[in-house]
């Protein structure tokens, strides 16, 4: 069972990441991680007649692939934790409705991959089942029409804006077996330092990421040097700079160990994504196309995966509210659990 230290849970069993899959579209395929995706669908409509259906279909494809790669059948999965950015999480509910797997919807904005993976890990760690799935997605077009403007509307993006990834990631976690392990989790606290600009989400989320990362090191006594990488989700260019400044105030120096999914998924300059990528699918697909494969082949040993989310809604922003951020942390390790 899990061992609590401060607000960090050390998972003594170490749930195993049994299989995973990343699906993306054209832009993601042209990015640096393009060749590592399991499926790149050039048609961002995924053969559907609305962007919402496209996203739902993409999320289904990611989970299907993950189940297939692990040679599981859907009936073996005991529970699914899934969510996305659309109102009432319709990409997950409509995409996964035909699977007949017990379903628990989660909302953590762009932090959803870390949140759902954390819950799936705790579920198997607690012995409540053998296999649990974690899925999330985002789609540029469905997010744009919900949060910003119609796609054909002529608008200019400020340099601090982020580009919602059209991507999905799915992970199947098991109680036993071989694969990368989840060694510890630190649930995030909501942090709001008064950023009101919805075009500067990186800045809104950086304090939450700094808070969670600091707490993990304080709780566990580990140092940044104990990890190969600390990978945040979707702070992008602006937020990453702020994160390093904030952590330095707390006496945590990540030196060259920090990476950000929003900067890994796209070539920021060539693909004109301004500050970088964002959306649930961004950190999810980076995890499943790059980080987990590298933990599998041993080129990474220990990493901290810290996906961040901006917990805003257009309604709240229009009412003048500031944007609360959240960041959930998972310690992922290539080494078998129990060996220190």
């Amino acid at each position, binding site marked *: 069972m899990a061992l609590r230290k401060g607000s960090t849970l050390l998972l003594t069993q170490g749930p195993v990441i049994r299989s995973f899959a990343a699906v993306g579209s054209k832009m993601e395929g042209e990015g640096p991680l393009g060749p590592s995706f399991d499926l790149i669908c050039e048609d961002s409509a995924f053969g559907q007649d609305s962007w919402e259906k496209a996203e739902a279909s993409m999320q289904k494809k990611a989970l299907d692939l993950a189940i297939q790669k692990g040679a599981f059948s859907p009936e073996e999965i005991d529970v699914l934790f899934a969510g996305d950015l659309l109102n009432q999480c319709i990409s997950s509910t409509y995409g996964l409705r035909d699977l007949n797997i017990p379903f628990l919807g989660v909302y953590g904005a762009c932090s959803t991959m870390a949140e759902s993976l954390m819950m799936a890990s705790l579920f198997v760690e607690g012995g409540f089942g053998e296999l649990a799935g974690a899925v999330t997605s985002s789609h540029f*077009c469905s997010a744009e029409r919900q949060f910003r403007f119609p796609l*054909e509307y002529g608008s*200019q993006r400020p340099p601090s804006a982020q580009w919602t990834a059209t991507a999905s990631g799915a992970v199947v976690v098991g109680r036993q077996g071989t694969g990368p392990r989840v060694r510890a989790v630190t649930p995030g606290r909501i942090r709001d330092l008064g950023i009101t600009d919805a075009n500067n989400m990186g800045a809104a989320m950086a304090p939450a990421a700094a808070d969670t990362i600091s707490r993990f090191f304080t709780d566990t006594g580990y140092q940044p040097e104990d990890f190969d990488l600390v990978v945040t989700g979707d702070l992008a260019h602006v937020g990453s700079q702020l994160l390093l400044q904030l952590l330095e105030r707390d006496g945590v120096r990540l030196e060259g160990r920090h990476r950000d999914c929003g900067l890994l998924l796209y070539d920021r300059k060539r693909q004109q994504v301004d500050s970088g990528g964002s959306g649930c699918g961004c950190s999810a697909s980076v995890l499943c196309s790059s980080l987990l494969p590298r933990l599998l082949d041993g080129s990474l040993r220990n990493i901290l995966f810290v996906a961040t989310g901006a917990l805003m809604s257009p309604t709240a922003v229009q009412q003048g509210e500031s944007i609360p951020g959240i960041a959930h942390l998972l310690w992922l390790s290539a080494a078998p659990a129990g060996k220190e």
Partner: protein
Amino acid sequence: MNLFVLLKAFLVGGSLCLIGQLLIDRTKLTPARILVAYVVAGVLLGGLGIYQHLIDFAGAGATVPLTGFGALLAKGTRQAIQEQGPLGILSGGLTACAPGVAGAIVLSLLAGFFSRSKDKP
């Protein structure tokens, strides 16, 4: 065609757009608010009789930006009041800008029928 007339339209129209860009980049104003501000400013300047001078000088350079739309509303209201009395207060503005608005509505309806939402490249 008189090139000087075109140059005047270019300079005045361009300047009105430049002001809009400065408002976007330097203030917190969203595009929708800027459009509203332009129309209301147009009504105000048109009502005060200032905007007509700009139209006389720059032609389309003053009528094409949304301030021109506002000025047209004011002008139409004034003319309707002169011709029909108090009812013109309500009927003048819409009547004057009806061609543009009705055109935009009908053409947008057709666009909605015949065009599909596309992903960004």
